[in-house]
Protein backbone atom coordinates (compact mmCIF):
# COMPACT_ATOMS: atom_id res chain seq x y z
CA UNK A 1 0.00 0.00 0.00
CA UNK A 2 1.07 3.55 -0.73
CA UNK A 3 1.86 5.66 2.32
CA UNK A 4 -0.19 8.81 2.68
CA UNK A 5 2.68 10.59 4.36
CA UNK A 6 6.31 9.68 3.96
CA UNK A 7 8.76 11.34 6.33
CA UNK A 8 12.40 10.96 5.50
CA UNK A 9 15.33 11.98 7.72
CA UNK A 10 13.46 14.95 9.08
CA UNK A 11 15.66 17.13 11.29
CA UNK A 12 15.31 20.27 13.32
CA UNK A 13 18.18 22.04 14.99
CA UNK A 14 17.61 25.07 17.18
CA UNK A 15 20.78 27.11 17.04
CA UNK A 16 23.44 27.51 14.40
CA UNK A 17 25.38 24.32 14.96
CA UNK A 18 29.17 24.20 14.88
CA UNK A 19 31.93 22.08 13.39
CA UNK A 20 31.85 19.75 16.37
CA UNK A 21 28.16 18.84 16.18
CA UNK A 22 28.10 18.88 12.38
CA UNK A 23 30.77 16.19 12.15
CA UNK A 24 30.10 13.97 15.10
CA UNK A 25 26.77 12.85 13.67
CA UNK A 26 25.27 13.27 17.09
CA UNK A 27 27.75 11.08 18.88
CA UNK A 28 29.17 13.94 20.91
CA UNK A 29 25.87 15.47 21.92
CA UNK A 30 24.86 15.60 25.53
CA UNK A 31 21.28 14.43 25.32
CA UNK A 32 19.99 16.43 22.39
CA UNK A 33 22.35 19.36 22.84
CA UNK A 34 25.77 20.23 21.50
CA UNK A 35 28.10 20.92 24.46
CA UNK A 36 30.08 23.43 22.38
CA UNK A 37 27.55 25.65 20.64
CA UNK A 38 24.54 24.72 22.77
CA UNK A 39 22.42 24.04 19.69
CA UNK A 40 19.47 21.76 20.44
CA UNK A 41 18.83 18.88 18.06
CA UNK A 42 15.09 18.57 18.60
CA UNK A 43 14.57 16.09 15.74
CA UNK A 44 17.30 14.02 14.17
CA UNK A 45 16.82 11.98 11.01
CA UNK A 46 13.26 11.05 11.86
CA UNK A 47 11.80 8.71 9.23
CA UNK A 48 8.47 6.92 9.11
CA UNK A 49 5.48 6.23 6.89
CA UNK A 50 1.87 6.96 7.73
CA UNK A 51 -0.64 4.88 5.79
CA UNK A 52 -4.27 5.64 4.91
CA UNK A 53 -6.61 5.00 7.88
CA UNK A 54 -3.66 4.40 10.14
CA UNK A 55 -3.13 5.87 13.58
CA UNK A 56 0.53 6.17 14.45
CA UNK A 57 1.61 6.84 18.01
CA UNK A 58 4.63 8.86 19.03
CA UNK A 59 5.91 8.35 22.56
CA UNK A 60 8.95 9.60 24.36
CA UNK A 61 9.91 11.52 27.44
CA UNK A 62 9.51 15.25 27.79
CA UNK A 63 11.84 17.08 25.40
CA UNK A 64 12.30 14.11 23.07
CA UNK A 65 11.07 16.12 20.08
CA UNK A 66 7.46 14.98 19.66
CA UNK A 67 5.88 18.41 19.46
CA UNK A 68 8.66 19.68 17.24
CA UNK A 69 7.95 16.84 14.83
CA UNK A 70 4.26 17.80 14.73
CA UNK A 71 5.07 21.46 14.17
CA UNK A 72 7.41 20.57 11.30
CA UNK A 73 4.72 18.50 9.62
CA UNK A 74 2.19 21.32 10.08
CA UNK A 75 4.66 23.78 8.50
CA UNK A 76 4.77 25.85 11.66
CA UNK A 77 8.54 25.67 11.66
CA UNK A 78 11.21 25.23 9.03
CA UNK A 79 13.02 21.90 9.09
CA UNK A 80 16.81 22.05 8.99
CA UNK A 81 16.97 18.80 7.06
CA UNK A 82 14.98 15.97 5.53
CA UNK A 83 11.97 15.59 3.30
CA UNK A 84 8.24 15.00 3.58
CA UNK A 85 6.11 13.51 0.83
CA UNK A 86 2.35 13.51 0.71
CA UNK A 87 0.67 10.66 -1.14
CA UNK A 88 4.17 9.44 -1.84
CA UNK A 89 4.24 7.26 -4.90
CA UNK A 90 6.34 4.14 -4.72
CA UNK A 91 6.78 3.91 -8.48
CA UNK A 92 8.97 5.85 -10.84
CA UNK A 93 7.16 9.15 -10.71
CA UNK A 94 8.73 11.14 -7.94
CA UNK A 95 6.31 13.00 -5.74
CA UNK A 96 7.34 16.40 -4.47
CA UNK A 97 9.01 17.17 -1.18
CA UNK A 98 6.38 19.42 0.38
CA UNK A 99 8.93 21.07 2.67
CA UNK A 100 10.39 22.71 -0.42
CA UNK A 101 7.12 24.42 -1.36
CA UNK A 102 6.61 28.16 -0.95
CA UNK A 103 4.67 29.63 1.96
CA UNK A 104 1.46 30.01 -0.05
CA UNK A 105 1.43 26.41 -1.24
CA UNK A 106 2.27 25.21 2.25
CA UNK A 107 -0.62 27.09 3.75
CA UNK A 108 -2.95 25.65 1.11
CA UNK A 109 -1.76 22.15 1.87
CA UNK A 110 -2.16 22.73 5.58
CA UNK A 111 -5.66 24.09 5.09
CA UNK A 112 -6.69 21.21 2.84
CA UNK A 113 -4.95 18.13 4.16
CA UNK A 114 -4.24 18.65 7.83
CA UNK A 115 -6.18 19.12 11.02
CA UNK A 116 -4.38 19.78 14.27
CA UNK A 117 -5.32 19.62 17.93
CA UNK A 118 -2.95 21.02 20.53
CA UNK A 119 -2.58 20.14 24.18
CA UNK A 120 -3.28 23.74 25.05
CA UNK A 121 -6.59 24.97 23.59
CA UNK A 122 -5.20 28.53 23.67
CA UNK A 123 -2.95 27.51 20.78
CA UNK A 124 -5.66 25.96 18.65
CA UNK A 125 -8.62 28.23 19.30
CA UNK A 126 -9.40 31.90 19.15
CA UNK A 127 -10.84 32.26 22.60
CA UNK A 128 -12.81 35.42 21.85
CA UNK A 129 -14.33 34.16 18.61
CA UNK A 130 -17.49 32.04 18.79
CA UNK A 131 -17.15 28.23 18.79
CA UNK A 132 -18.91 28.16 15.43
CA UNK A 133 -16.59 30.86 14.12
CA UNK A 134 -13.57 28.85 15.18
CA UNK A 135 -14.86 25.90 13.19
CA UNK A 136 -15.77 28.20 10.29
CA UNK A 137 -12.36 29.80 9.89
CA UNK A 138 -10.90 27.20 7.55
CA UNK A 139 -14.10 27.10 5.53
CA UNK A 140 -13.90 30.87 5.14
CA UNK A 141 -10.27 30.59 4.14
CA UNK A 142 -11.26 27.98 1.57
CA UNK A 143 -13.72 30.41 0.00
CA UNK A 144 -17.06 29.53 1.61
CA UNK A 145 -19.22 32.65 1.29
CA UNK A 146 -22.63 31.60 2.55
CA UNK A 147 -23.24 32.11 6.25
CA UNK A 148 -26.14 29.66 6.26
CA UNK A 149 -24.13 26.85 4.71
CA UNK A 150 -21.15 27.58 6.94
CA UNK A 151 -23.35 27.37 10.01
CA UNK A 152 -24.85 24.14 8.80
CA UNK A 153 -21.42 22.56 8.44
CA UNK A 154 -20.08 24.01 11.71
CA UNK A 155 -23.23 22.82 13.46
CA UNK A 156 -22.78 19.28 12.13
CA UNK A 157 -19.21 19.17 13.38
CA UNK A 158 -20.03 20.60 16.78
CA UNK A 159 -22.81 18.02 17.08
CA UNK A 160 -20.35 15.28 16.18
CA UNK A 161 -18.02 16.50 18.88
CA UNK A 162 -20.90 16.72 21.38
CA UNK A 163 -21.05 20.48 21.79
CA UNK A 164 -24.66 21.60 22.25
CA UNK A 165 -25.77 23.74 19.32
CA UNK A 166 -27.11 26.28 21.77
CA UNK A 167 -23.48 27.18 22.55
CA UNK A 168 -22.33 27.53 18.97
CA UNK A 169 -22.30 31.32 19.07
CA UNK A 170 -20.56 31.50 22.42
CA UNK A 171 -16.83 32.07 22.74
CA UNK A 172 -14.93 29.01 24.02
CA UNK A 173 -13.24 31.16 26.65
CA UNK A 174 -15.92 30.15 29.14
CA UNK A 175 -16.05 26.48 28.14
CA UNK A 176 -14.64 23.68 30.29
CA UNK A 177 -11.31 22.14 29.31
CA UNK A 178 -12.99 19.09 27.82
CA UNK A 179 -15.39 21.20 25.78
CA UNK A 180 -12.54 23.35 24.50
CA UNK A 181 -10.74 20.23 23.33
CA UNK A 182 -13.89 19.08 21.56
CA UNK A 183 -14.24 22.45 19.83
CA UNK A 184 -10.62 22.11 18.75
CA UNK A 185 -11.40 18.70 17.31
CA UNK A 186 -14.43 20.07 15.44
CA UNK A 187 -12.22 22.84 14.08
CA UNK A 188 -9.56 20.35 13.04
CA UNK A 189 -12.17 18.34 11.12
CA UNK A 190 -13.79 21.31 9.37
CA UNK A 191 -11.78 21.04 6.16
CA UNK A 192 -12.26 17.25 5.89
CA UNK A 193 -8.55 16.63 6.46
CA UNK A 194 -6.77 13.44 5.45
CA UNK A 195 -4.36 13.67 8.36
CA UNK A 196 -5.02 14.62 11.97
CA UNK A 197 -2.17 15.74 14.18
CA UNK A 198 -2.98 15.26 17.87
CA UNK A 199 -0.43 16.54 20.34
CA UNK A 200 -1.16 15.48 23.93
CA UNK A 201 -4.82 16.28 23.47
CA UNK A 202 -5.99 14.70 26.72
CA UNK A 203 -3.14 15.73 28.97
CA UNK A 204 -4.45 18.09 31.59
CA UNK A 205 -8.03 16.82 31.45
CA UNK A 206 -9.77 14.97 34.27
CA UNK A 207 -9.71 11.21 33.83
CA UNK A 208 -13.42 10.89 33.09
CA UNK A 209 -13.24 13.75 30.60
CA UNK A 210 -10.15 12.17 29.03
CA UNK A 211 -12.03 8.96 28.37
CA UNK A 212 -14.83 10.81 26.62
CA UNK A 213 -12.46 12.76 24.37
CA UNK A 214 -10.51 9.60 23.53
CA UNK A 215 -13.69 7.74 22.61
CA UNK A 216 -14.71 10.62 20.44
CA UNK A 217 -11.38 10.62 18.61
CA UNK A 218 -11.50 6.86 18.13
CA UNK A 219 -15.01 6.97 16.70
CA UNK A 220 -14.33 9.91 14.44
CA UNK A 221 -11.16 8.34 13.13
CA UNK A 222 -13.08 5.20 12.13
CA UNK A 223 -16.09 7.00 10.78
CA UNK A 224 -14.14 9.51 8.72
CA UNK A 225 -11.32 7.13 7.75
CA UNK A 226 -8.65 9.50 8.92
CA UNK A 227 -4.98 8.95 9.30
CA UNK A 228 -3.63 10.35 12.52
CA UNK A 229 -0.43 11.04 14.36
CA UNK A 230 -1.03 10.77 18.09
CA UNK A 231 1.58 12.24 20.39
CA UNK A 232 1.36 11.23 24.00
CA UNK A 233 3.51 10.22 26.88
CA UNK A 234 0.52 8.32 28.26
CA UNK A 235 0.93 4.75 27.08
CA UNK A 236 -2.73 4.12 27.87
CA UNK A 237 -3.71 6.64 25.21
CA UNK A 238 -1.29 5.05 22.76
CA UNK A 239 -2.61 1.56 23.45
CA UNK A 240 -6.19 2.69 22.96
CA UNK A 241 -5.73 4.64 19.73
CA UNK A 242 -2.65 3.59 17.83
CA UNK A 243 -2.00 0.75 15.43
CA UNK A 244 1.71 1.38 15.26
CA UNK A 245 4.00 3.39 17.48
CA UNK A 246 7.38 5.02 17.24
CA UNK A 247 9.50 5.76 20.27
CA UNK A 248 11.59 8.92 20.37
CA UNK A 249 14.50 9.91 22.55
CA UNK A 250 16.75 12.96 22.23
CA UNK A 251 15.18 13.72 18.88
CA UNK A 252 15.80 10.27 17.39
CA UNK A 253 13.50 7.35 16.67
CA UNK A 254 14.89 4.53 18.81
CA UNK A 255 12.23 1.93 18.11
CA UNK A 256 9.14 1.47 16.01
CA UNK A 257 6.61 -1.28 15.45
CA UNK A 258 3.11 -2.47 16.15
CA UNK A 259 1.80 -0.89 19.32
CA UNK A 260 1.11 -4.24 20.99
CA UNK A 261 4.64 -5.43 20.28
CA UNK A 262 6.20 -2.26 21.57
CA UNK A 263 4.19 -2.33 24.76
CA UNK A 264 4.42 -6.09 25.40
CA UNK A 265 7.89 -6.80 24.14
CA UNK A 266 9.99 -3.66 23.93
CA UNK A 267 13.42 -4.19 22.39
CA UNK A 268 15.29 -0.97 23.03
CA UNK A 269 16.44 -0.47 26.63
CA UNK A 270 14.91 3.02 26.64
CA UNK A 271 11.52 1.65 25.57
CA UNK A 272 11.80 -1.05 28.20
CA UNK A 273 12.35 1.64 30.79
CA UNK A 274 9.45 3.67 29.47
CA UNK A 275 7.09 0.71 29.52
CA UNK A 276 8.19 -0.59 32.89
CA UNK A 277 8.06 2.77 34.58
CA UNK A 278 4.43 2.94 33.67
CA UNK A 279 3.68 -0.42 35.26
Amino acid sequence: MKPLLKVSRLSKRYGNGCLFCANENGAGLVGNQCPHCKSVFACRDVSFDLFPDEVLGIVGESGSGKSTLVRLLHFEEEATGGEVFLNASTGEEKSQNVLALGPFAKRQLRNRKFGIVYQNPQMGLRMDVSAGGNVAEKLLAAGWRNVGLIRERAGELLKKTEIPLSRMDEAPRNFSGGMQQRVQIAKALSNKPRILLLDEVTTGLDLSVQARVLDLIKNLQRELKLSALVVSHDLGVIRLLCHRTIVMRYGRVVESGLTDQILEDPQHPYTQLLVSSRL
Partner: protein
Amino acid sequence: MPIVEKSKKQTRQILYNFAFLDDVAKREIRRKILKAVAVPGYQVPFGSREMPIARGWGTGGLQITLSLIEPSDTLKVIDQGCDYSVNAVNIKKFVQAVTGVRITTDTTEATLIQTRHRIPEEPMTEDQILVLQVPYPEALREVEPSEQKTRAMHAEGDYGRMWLFLYEDIIHYGEVRLSYRYPVLVNNKYIMDPSPIPRWDVPKLNMARTLFLFGAGREKRIYAVPPYTSVEPLQFEDHPFRVESFAGKRCERCGAEDTYLDEIIAEDGVTRHYYCSDTSFCDKRRRT
Protein backbone atom coordinates in the same frame (compact mmCIF):
# COMPACT_ATOMS: atom_id res chain seq x y z
CA MET B 1 10.72 76.03 -10.71
CA PRO B 2 11.42 78.16 -7.63
CA ILE B 3 8.84 80.64 -6.58
CA VAL B 4 9.74 83.80 -4.76
CA GLU B 5 7.02 85.20 -2.64
CA LYS B 6 7.33 88.49 -0.90
CA SER B 7 5.51 88.51 2.35
CA LYS B 8 3.24 91.44 2.98
CA LYS B 9 5.64 93.20 5.27
CA GLN B 10 8.49 92.61 2.84
CA THR B 11 10.66 91.58 5.78
CA ARG B 12 11.68 88.22 4.38
CA GLN B 13 11.53 86.16 1.26
CA ILE B 14 10.30 82.60 1.19
CA LEU B 15 11.98 80.41 -1.36
CA TYR B 16 10.50 77.11 -2.31
CA ASN B 17 9.85 74.88 -5.25
CA PHE B 18 6.64 74.91 -7.25
CA ALA B 19 4.19 72.86 -5.17
CA PHE B 20 6.43 73.08 -2.11
CA LEU B 21 8.03 69.61 -2.35
CA ASP B 22 11.51 69.43 -3.79
CA ASP B 23 12.00 67.56 -7.04
CA VAL B 24 13.56 64.52 -5.41
CA ALA B 25 10.57 64.10 -3.13
CA LYS B 26 8.15 64.53 -6.00
CA ARG B 27 9.95 62.02 -8.13
CA GLU B 28 9.94 59.48 -5.34
CA ILE B 29 6.25 59.95 -4.67
CA ARG B 30 5.41 59.75 -8.38
CA ARG B 31 7.38 56.52 -8.69
CA LYS B 32 5.50 55.10 -5.73
CA ILE B 33 2.22 56.20 -7.30
CA LEU B 34 3.16 54.41 -10.51
CA LYS B 35 3.89 51.28 -8.55
CA ALA B 36 0.61 51.61 -6.67
CA VAL B 37 -1.26 51.95 -9.96
CA ALA B 38 0.54 48.92 -11.37
CA VAL B 39 -0.49 46.78 -8.38
CA PRO B 40 -4.03 47.91 -7.52
CA GLY B 41 -4.84 47.82 -3.82
CA TYR B 42 -1.25 47.12 -2.77
CA GLN B 43 0.17 49.45 -0.12
CA VAL B 44 3.42 50.98 -1.29
CA PRO B 45 5.67 52.42 1.43
CA PHE B 46 6.95 55.92 0.73
CA GLY B 47 9.19 58.40 2.49
CA SER B 48 6.51 60.65 3.94
CA ARG B 49 7.87 64.21 4.33
CA GLU B 50 7.26 66.71 7.05
CA MET B 51 4.52 69.05 5.90
CA PRO B 52 3.47 72.42 7.28
CA ILE B 53 0.27 70.79 8.56
CA ALA B 54 0.11 68.20 11.30
CA ARG B 55 0.26 64.53 10.41
CA GLY B 56 -3.16 63.02 10.63
CA TRP B 57 -4.60 66.08 8.89
CA GLY B 58 -4.20 64.82 5.40
CA THR B 59 -0.46 65.00 4.86
CA GLY B 60 -0.51 61.76 2.85
CA GLY B 61 -3.14 63.08 0.46
CA LEU B 62 -1.45 66.44 0.34
CA GLN B 63 1.90 64.98 -0.70
CA ILE B 64 0.20 63.07 -3.53
CA THR B 65 -1.59 66.23 -4.62
CA LEU B 66 1.61 68.29 -4.52
CA SER B 67 3.64 65.79 -6.48
CA LEU B 68 1.02 65.53 -9.24
CA ILE B 69 -0.27 69.06 -9.56
CA GLU B 70 0.61 71.22 -12.56
CA PRO B 71 0.03 74.94 -13.12
CA SER B 72 -2.82 74.15 -15.51
CA ASP B 73 -4.71 72.08 -12.93
CA THR B 74 -7.95 73.08 -11.25
CA LEU B 75 -8.15 71.93 -7.67
CA LYS B 76 -11.07 71.07 -5.42
CA VAL B 77 -10.61 70.09 -1.78
CA ILE B 78 -13.37 68.67 0.38
CA ASP B 79 -13.66 67.40 3.90
CA GLN B 80 -16.67 65.22 4.75
CA GLY B 81 -18.22 66.38 1.49
CA CYS B 82 -17.84 70.05 2.31
CA ASP B 83 -15.65 72.54 0.45
CA TYR B 84 -15.68 75.07 3.27
CA SER B 85 -14.63 73.14 6.35
CA VAL B 86 -11.54 74.45 8.09
CA ASN B 87 -9.36 71.55 7.09
CA ALA B 88 -10.35 71.74 3.43
CA VAL B 89 -9.90 75.49 3.35
CA ASN B 90 -6.45 75.29 4.94
CA ILE B 91 -5.24 72.70 2.46
CA LYS B 92 -6.69 74.68 -0.43
CA LYS B 93 -5.04 77.90 0.71
CA PHE B 94 -1.73 76.19 1.14
CA VAL B 95 -1.74 74.49 -2.25
CA GLN B 96 -2.81 77.66 -3.93
CA ALA B 97 -0.08 79.64 -2.22
CA VAL B 98 2.61 77.24 -3.40
CA THR B 99 1.26 76.62 -6.89
CA GLY B 100 -1.07 79.43 -7.88
CA VAL B 101 -3.50 76.95 -9.47
CA ARG B 102 -7.16 77.68 -9.98
CA ILE B 103 -9.47 76.52 -7.19
CA THR B 104 -13.03 75.36 -7.70
CA THR B 105 -15.87 73.83 -5.73
CA ASP B 106 -17.45 72.30 -8.83
CA THR B 107 -16.65 68.61 -9.09
CA THR B 108 -17.03 68.59 -12.86
CA GLU B 109 -14.62 71.50 -13.29
CA ALA B 110 -11.83 70.13 -11.15
CA THR B 111 -8.97 68.14 -12.63
CA LEU B 112 -7.66 67.13 -9.23
CA ILE B 113 -9.76 66.61 -6.11
CA GLN B 114 -8.41 65.95 -2.67
CA THR B 115 -10.90 64.55 -0.21
CA ARG B 116 -11.40 63.26 3.27
CA HIS B 117 -14.29 60.88 4.06
CA ARG B 118 -16.33 61.28 0.87
CA ILE B 119 -16.37 60.65 -2.85
CA PRO B 120 -18.30 63.39 -4.68
CA GLU B 121 -21.82 62.56 -5.82
CA GLU B 122 -21.29 63.68 -9.39
CA PRO B 123 -19.65 61.01 -11.53
CA MET B 124 -16.02 61.71 -12.32
CA THR B 125 -14.23 61.10 -15.60
CA GLU B 126 -10.98 59.72 -17.01
CA ASP B 127 -9.56 63.23 -16.98
CA GLN B 128 -9.84 63.60 -13.24
CA ILE B 129 -7.94 62.20 -10.26
CA LEU B 130 -9.38 61.77 -6.81
CA VAL B 131 -6.87 61.83 -3.95
CA LEU B 132 -8.17 60.34 -0.70
CA GLN B 133 -6.69 61.09 2.71
CA VAL B 134 -6.18 57.92 4.71
CA PRO B 135 -5.70 57.75 8.47
CA TYR B 136 -5.31 53.94 8.73
CA PRO B 137 -4.24 52.22 5.52
CA GLU B 138 -4.31 48.64 6.78
CA ALA B 139 -7.70 46.97 6.38
CA LEU B 140 -6.49 43.89 8.27
CA ARG B 141 -5.31 45.80 11.33
CA GLU B 142 -8.55 45.00 13.12
CA VAL B 143 -7.69 41.31 13.06
CA GLU B 144 -3.87 41.41 13.14
CA PRO B 145 -1.82 43.99 15.03
CA SER B 146 1.55 43.07 13.52
CA GLU B 147 2.54 44.86 10.32
CA GLN B 148 4.88 42.07 9.34
CA LYS B 149 2.06 39.57 9.59
CA THR B 150 -0.49 41.65 7.68
CA ARG B 151 2.04 42.02 4.89
CA ALA B 152 2.43 38.24 4.73
CA MET B 153 -1.36 37.84 4.80
CA HIS B 154 -1.68 40.14 1.79
CA ALA B 155 1.17 38.42 -0.03
CA GLU B 156 -0.45 35.03 0.41
CA GLY B 157 -4.08 36.09 0.07
CA ASP B 158 -4.51 34.76 3.59
CA TYR B 159 -7.81 36.48 4.32
CA GLY B 160 -9.69 33.85 6.35
CA ARG B 161 -9.47 35.91 9.52
CA MET B 162 -10.91 39.00 7.88
CA TRP B 163 -13.87 36.95 6.72
CA LEU B 164 -14.12 35.46 10.19
CA PHE B 165 -14.38 38.97 11.58
CA LEU B 166 -17.34 39.69 9.28
CA TYR B 167 -18.91 36.31 10.08
CA GLU B 168 -18.78 37.06 13.80
CA ASP B 169 -20.47 40.42 13.30
CA ILE B 170 -23.24 38.78 11.32
CA ILE B 171 -23.96 36.03 13.84
CA HIS B 172 -23.88 38.39 16.80
CA TYR B 173 -25.54 41.46 15.33
CA GLY B 174 -27.29 40.24 12.20
CA GLU B 175 -25.11 42.42 9.97
CA VAL B 176 -21.60 43.74 9.48
CA ARG B 177 -21.46 46.78 11.70
CA LEU B 178 -18.77 48.71 9.85
CA SER B 179 -20.20 51.98 8.60
CA TYR B 180 -16.88 53.48 7.50
CA ARG B 181 -13.72 51.89 6.16
CA TYR B 182 -15.73 48.99 4.77
CA PRO B 183 -13.13 46.48 3.48
CA VAL B 184 -13.08 45.84 -0.24
CA LEU B 185 -11.37 43.33 -2.50
CA VAL B 186 -9.50 45.10 -5.29
CA ASN B 187 -8.93 43.46 -8.65
CA ASN B 188 -9.79 40.10 -7.07
CA LYS B 189 -6.50 40.17 -5.24
CA TYR B 190 -5.88 42.52 -2.33
CA ILE B 191 -8.18 43.47 0.51
CA MET B 192 -8.02 47.25 0.83
CA ASP B 193 -9.19 49.94 3.21
CA PRO B 194 -11.13 52.43 1.08
CA SER B 195 -10.45 55.14 3.72
CA PRO B 196 -13.24 56.35 6.03
CA ILE B 197 -15.79 56.90 3.29
CA PRO B 198 -19.35 55.80 4.11
CA ARG B 199 -20.68 52.59 2.59
CA TRP B 200 -22.63 54.82 0.23
CA ASP B 201 -19.44 55.69 -1.63
CA VAL B 202 -17.95 52.21 -1.83
CA PRO B 203 -19.75 51.15 -5.04
CA LYS B 204 -18.41 54.29 -6.74
CA LEU B 205 -14.94 52.74 -6.66
CA ASN B 206 -15.95 49.78 -8.76
CA MET B 207 -15.07 49.93 -12.48
CA ALA B 208 -14.87 53.69 -12.19
CA ARG B 209 -13.57 55.93 -14.95
CA THR B 210 -11.37 57.85 -12.54
CA LEU B 211 -8.02 57.16 -10.95
CA PHE B 212 -8.24 56.97 -7.16
CA LEU B 213 -5.07 57.56 -5.16
CA PHE B 214 -4.88 56.95 -1.42
CA GLY B 215 -2.27 58.58 0.79
CA ALA B 216 -1.51 57.87 4.44
CA GLY B 217 1.07 60.37 5.72
CA ARG B 218 1.56 59.15 9.24
CA GLU B 219 1.73 55.51 8.17
CA LYS B 220 3.76 56.31 5.04
CA ARG B 221 1.69 54.36 2.55
CA ILE B 222 0.32 55.06 -0.91
CA TYR B 223 -2.13 52.83 -2.73
CA ALA B 224 -4.35 53.13 -5.76
CA VAL B 225 -7.41 51.99 -7.63
CA PRO B 226 -6.79 52.61 -11.33
CA PRO B 227 -9.69 53.27 -13.71
CA TYR B 228 -11.86 50.29 -14.66
CA THR B 229 -10.71 48.13 -11.77
CA SER B 230 -13.09 45.84 -9.94
CA VAL B 231 -13.64 46.83 -6.31
CA GLU B 232 -15.97 44.56 -4.38
CA PRO B 233 -17.07 45.05 -0.80
CA LEU B 234 -16.55 41.84 1.21
CA GLN B 235 -19.96 40.22 1.47
CA PHE B 236 -21.68 36.88 1.94
CA GLU B 237 -24.15 35.44 -0.56
CA ASP B 238 -26.90 35.42 2.04
CA HIS B 239 -25.83 38.71 3.66
CA PRO B 240 -25.10 41.06 0.78
CA PHE B 241 -23.38 44.40 1.30
CA ARG B 242 -25.84 47.26 1.60
CA VAL B 243 -25.36 51.01 1.48
CA GLU B 244 -27.02 53.36 3.94
CA SER B 245 -30.72 53.75 3.34
CA PHE B 246 -32.25 57.21 3.31
CA ALA B 247 -35.65 55.92 2.30
CA GLY B 248 -38.34 58.52 2.86
CA LYS B 249 -35.79 61.25 3.50
CA ARG B 250 -34.62 64.06 1.28
CA CYS B 251 -32.24 66.99 1.45
CA GLU B 252 -34.02 69.95 2.97
CA ARG B 253 -31.99 72.38 0.91
CA CYS B 254 -32.08 70.94 -2.61
CA GLY B 255 -34.71 68.24 -2.29
CA ALA B 256 -32.39 65.44 -3.46
CA GLU B 257 -33.55 61.91 -2.67
CA ASP B 258 -30.57 60.16 -4.18
CA THR B 259 -27.59 61.56 -2.25
CA TYR B 260 -25.76 60.73 0.93
CA LEU B 261 -27.42 62.81 3.64
CA ASP B 262 -25.98 64.26 6.82
CA GLU B 263 -28.33 64.01 9.75
CA ILE B 264 -28.46 67.09 11.96
CA ILE B 265 -30.31 66.92 15.24
CA ALA B 266 -32.04 70.19 16.03
CA GLU B 267 -31.59 72.08 19.27
CA ASP B 268 -34.75 70.56 20.70
CA GLY B 269 -32.84 67.27 20.61
CA VAL B 270 -35.69 65.51 18.79
CA THR B 271 -36.20 66.94 15.34
CA ARG B 272 -33.86 65.60 12.68
CA HIS B 273 -32.84 67.54 9.64
CA TYR B 274 -31.26 66.08 6.53
CA TYR B 275 -28.92 67.83 4.14
CA CYS B 276 -26.70 66.67 1.30
CA SER B 277 -23.24 65.86 2.58
CA ASP B 278 -21.82 66.93 -0.81
CA THR B 279 -22.41 70.67 -0.37
CA SER B 280 -21.26 71.89 -3.77
CA PHE B 281 -23.55 69.44 -5.55
CA CYS B 282 -26.36 70.58 -3.28
CA ASP B 283 -25.67 74.22 -4.16
CA LYS B 284 -25.61 73.37 -7.83
CA ARG B 285 -29.00 71.69 -7.63
CA ARG B 286 -30.47 74.64 -5.82
CA ARG B 287 -29.29 76.98 -8.54
CA THR B 288 -30.87 74.96 -11.34
